[in-house]
């Protein structure tokens, strides 16, 4: 609603303060670990101490046969299978507790059950494991070599999938003014939401239903997966996602631990709970990323790209996780690599390598962060070789606004925007001449850029092509009035920091005019909400926002018909505005609350031909086309490198971004800022190293370094707002954007600083040790 001053107070575009804040500020958030039930048992898992072994047996502690469960004890429980429809995909079967083989450190072998977690851990410590070690596949680059041990012995090689594309690049050497080749690597990371995973399951004998309270981003998908593996019908599984302490992709998968706890709750007839601790999180479960690239690119003298060739390997770990699978990162590299540019020729080979490491899981930015790093550092290398600026080479290749909507050579369709303008705005806000002057004076400072676009909210047509177990269709939402006139919105996505209890209320207010204080957004419960694939892929604002708007529009039509009858007017003579149905001639009005009271409590006043559907509507929404929105951004970084210690200090971090119409600018800012902080972690700090035996080497947050308030600068944000032509309000998915650009921009800035010393950083994170090694190598 637009107020008389033209200020959008509560609707789309308002920076409305969050409705959900109050409970969190008072410590009244309710996360899985906060919930206990009478008779509840806690689970601790016996986990594999080695990366690859034949499991010969496990001796349960004396007298604990009924409290320790191995796979052999789980009757009727299937394996987790996440099969990709892409041709050539090799299928892994992930047992929820190990069967004959151990395939990564931390793989669950047995579930130990006790009244407290501490006592359950005592049981774990008393189990005796018997295994025979096998050669470990710890390096993704040599995993496919002949003679290497096989992680899955019925496979012909250690790879889930290989994808290729071949353009004729043979003439480029002859015609290019510059050619560069770079070998680049990103580390294995852990998503590290502050709350780990956790699940509490009880069996309701009256309903014959499992009630699974779990820390998930996708309750409906978890329900489908659980039902399939447990052999239940979906009506027998209710999944509740309560408050969730950050997700970032990690809570967008079904965990073996959830399946085991569900089975045990049925079997034991008591509530069963498992709360992941940080050691489990880091070493057994929350692994992501780890890319290796060999990139070659050719450009003409003006910096125009002539072609690129990419050989990419992703360490996908031991299993394909449900639902997104083992190829989520590698198989996307080919389609994402052209970036925001008009690349004319492109060849690639990607490999999803299978190793003795925990399965690779989605993390904010999925594949894009690594690809942006590979592409944008290569762009800078080309620019340096050509002797042109980082700005010039990008302006020579960015998709121009007049080409929108633009289909690139691999078939991605960019919806709208002015990519070059984002770069120009960034450069106008940076004192590059001052940085160059400091460099000339001998200071080790650098400036770096990353320009990228992010496909978000892509739908059926895209995911059907991947053949993943879940293909998002029409996103649905329910809108209904309760008898007191409060508007209730029910959505199948889940909000775990994104502020959707606020933004979806704003969408409802925009359409129906109901005060946001009188809009309740219900989410996170399969029993209360319509099916949705959940919150991932930067889809919430576009998909749930669109669905809520559509449901409210239809609800408004129902209310209008009732209101017209109450006003004794023809429907055409009334309109919905300001939360009431009003006569267009300025006469009488009836509020939506009065209409609700009439429908539920005074039906004698309804017209005889009233729509019997009443004041509850479920509606579906899908953008057309559904190839996704493309938000885009330019990240511009100024930093200092200490040549003695290798330490990097960010002086200025600027983001110019375009998320289309912003439903709530404050919340979008928060998403971008939080993403950038995570990207800074990827760029400089976060690394889960493994030794040659496949042992993870960072077991606590003292080893796995997350950026704190002293590492993340006061990031500057500048918005452009180019509406997407394909979405309800012009909004674009932007939730992951912030995490994509930082490694590229930061390493480009580091290399800008080190260039004069002949040094170049190639691997992430750019830790002091790696910066010093780069300087040393150049000596």
């Amino acid at each position: 609603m637009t107020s008389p001053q033209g200020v959008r107070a509560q609707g789309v575009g308002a920076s409305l303060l969050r409705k959900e804040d109050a409970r969190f500020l008072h410590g009244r958030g309710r996360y899985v670990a906060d919930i206990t039930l009478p008779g509840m048992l806690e689970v601790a898992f016996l986990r594999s101490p080695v990366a690859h072994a034949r499991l010969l047996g496990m001796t349960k502690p004396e007298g604990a046969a009924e409290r320790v469960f191995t796979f052999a004890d789980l009757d009727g429980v299937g394996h987790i299978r996440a099969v990709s429809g892409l041709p050539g995909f090799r299928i892994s079967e992930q047992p929820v507790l190990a069967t004959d083989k151990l395939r990564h450190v931390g793989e669950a072998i047995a579930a130990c059950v006790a009244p407290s977690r501490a006592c359950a851990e005592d049981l774990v410590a008393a189990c005796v494991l018997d295994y025979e070690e096998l050669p470990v596949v710890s390096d993704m680059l040599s995993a496919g070599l002949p003679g290497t041990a096989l992680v899955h012995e019925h496979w012909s090689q250690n790879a889930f999938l290989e994808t290729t594309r071949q353009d004729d690049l043979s003439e480029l050497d002859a015609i290019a003014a510059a050619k560069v080749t770079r070998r680049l690597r990103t580390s294995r990371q852990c998503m590290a939401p502050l709350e780990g995973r956790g699940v509490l399951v009880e069996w309701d004998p009256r309903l014959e239903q499992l009630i699974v309270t779990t820390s998930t981003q996708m309750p409906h998908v978890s329900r489908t997966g659980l039902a399939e593996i447990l052999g239940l019908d979906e009506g027998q599984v209710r999944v509740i996602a309560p408050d969730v302490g950050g997700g970032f992709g990690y809570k967008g998968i079904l965990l073996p631990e959830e399946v085991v706890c569900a089975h045990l709750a049925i079997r034991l007839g008591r509530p069963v709970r498992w709360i992941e601790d940080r050691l489990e999180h880091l070493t057994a479960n929350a692994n992501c990323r780890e890319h290796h690239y060999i990139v070659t690119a050719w450009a003409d003298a003006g910096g125009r790209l002539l072609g690129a060739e990419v050989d990419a390997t992703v360490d996908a770990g031991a299993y394909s996780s449900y639902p997104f699978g083992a190829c989520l990162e590698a198989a996307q590299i080919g389609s994402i690599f052209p970036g925001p540019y008009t690349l004319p020729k492109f060849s690639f080979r990607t490999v999803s390598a299978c190793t003795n490491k925990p399965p690779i899981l989605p993390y904010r930015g999925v594949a894009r962060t690594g690809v942006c790093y590979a592409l944008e550092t290569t762009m800078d290398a080309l620019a340096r070789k050509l002797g042109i600026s980082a700005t010039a080479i990008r302006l020579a290749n960015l998709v121009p606004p007049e080409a929108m909507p633009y289909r690139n050579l691999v078939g991605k369709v960019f919806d709208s925007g002015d990519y070059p303008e984002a770069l120009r705005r960034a450069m106008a806000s940076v004192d590059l001449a001052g940085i160059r002057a400091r460099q000339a004076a001998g200071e080790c400072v650098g400036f770096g850029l990353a320009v990228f676009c992010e496909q978000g909210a892509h739908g059926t047509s895209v995911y059907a092509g991947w053949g993943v177990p879940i293909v998002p269709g029409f996103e649905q939402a329910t809108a209904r009035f309760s008898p007191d006139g409060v508007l209730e919105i029910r959505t199948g996505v889940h909000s775990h920091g994104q502020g959707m209890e606020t933004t979806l209320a704003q969408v409802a207010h925009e359409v129906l005019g109901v005060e946001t204080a009188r809009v309740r957004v219900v989410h996170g419960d399969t029993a209360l909400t319509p099916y949705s694939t959940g919150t991932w892929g930067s889809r919430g604002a576009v998909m749930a926002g669109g669905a809520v708007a559509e449901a409210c529009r239809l609800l408004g039509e129902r209310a209008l018909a009732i209101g017209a009858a109450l006003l004794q007017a023809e429907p055409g003579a009334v309109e919905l505005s300001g939360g009431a149905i009003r006569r267009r001639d300025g006469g009488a009005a009836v509020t939506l609350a009065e209409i609700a009271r009439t429908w539920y409590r005074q039906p004698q006043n309804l017209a005889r031909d009233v729509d019997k559907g009443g004041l509850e509507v479920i509606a579906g929404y899908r953008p057309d086309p559904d190839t996704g929105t493309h938000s885009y951004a330019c990240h511009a970084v100024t930093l200092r490198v200490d040549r003695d210690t290798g330490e990097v200090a960010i002086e200025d971090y600027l983001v110019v971004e375009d998320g289309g119409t912003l439903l709530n600018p404050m919340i979008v800012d928060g998403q971008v800022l939080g993403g950038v902080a995570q990207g800074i972690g990827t760029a400089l700090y976060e690394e889960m190293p493994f030794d040659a035996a496949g042992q993870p080497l960072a077991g606590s947050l003292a080893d796995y370094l997350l950026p704190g308030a002293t590492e993340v600068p006061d990031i500057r944000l500048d918005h452009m707002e180019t509406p997407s032509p394909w979405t309800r309000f012009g909004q674009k998915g932007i939730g992951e954007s912030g995490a994509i650009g930082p490694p590229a921009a930061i390493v480009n800035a580091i290399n800008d600083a080190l260039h004069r010393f002949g040094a170049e950083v190639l691997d992430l994170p750019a830790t002091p040790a790696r910066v010093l090694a780069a300087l040393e190598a150049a000596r």
Partner: protein
Amino acid sequence: MNRSAISLTVNGAATTLEAEPRTHLADLLRGGMLLTGTHLGCEHGVCGACTVELDGAPARSCITHAGACDGASVRTIEGFAEDAVMAALRAAFTAEHALQCGYCTPGMLITARDVVLRLPEADEARVREEMAGNLCRCTGYRGIVRAVLRVLEQRRSAAAVA
């Protein structure tokens, strides 16, 4: 395992609880007293989500032995209802969008309150340094830092008027 009695004052009320010797303070508060606003993030004393006020100063309840708290006074996020500084911080956290998932928020607020009371002249750099022991994975810290600075500024203005 043996359980021993621990007497302590929690949020102003004297109480005695039984706990195993290995119990840490966070589990005692969350389990025995249902004070679930104290969150566990790392159980290594790194992330700060479990920060409570122990005898007037912030402490990591995940690495504080419950048994060592016999006779101590503990205040958790649930114990600041009447506290004006906490009220100002809560308002500032909302206004500056200093929280998203809410998991770090209780520990963040307790640390922030200590900073506000102990360092009334703190500038942005000092606030960042003081808050560096509390990790947030959602916000990028800008809102948190601005919220603390906002309350510091309010208090300096109020003091100047007085």
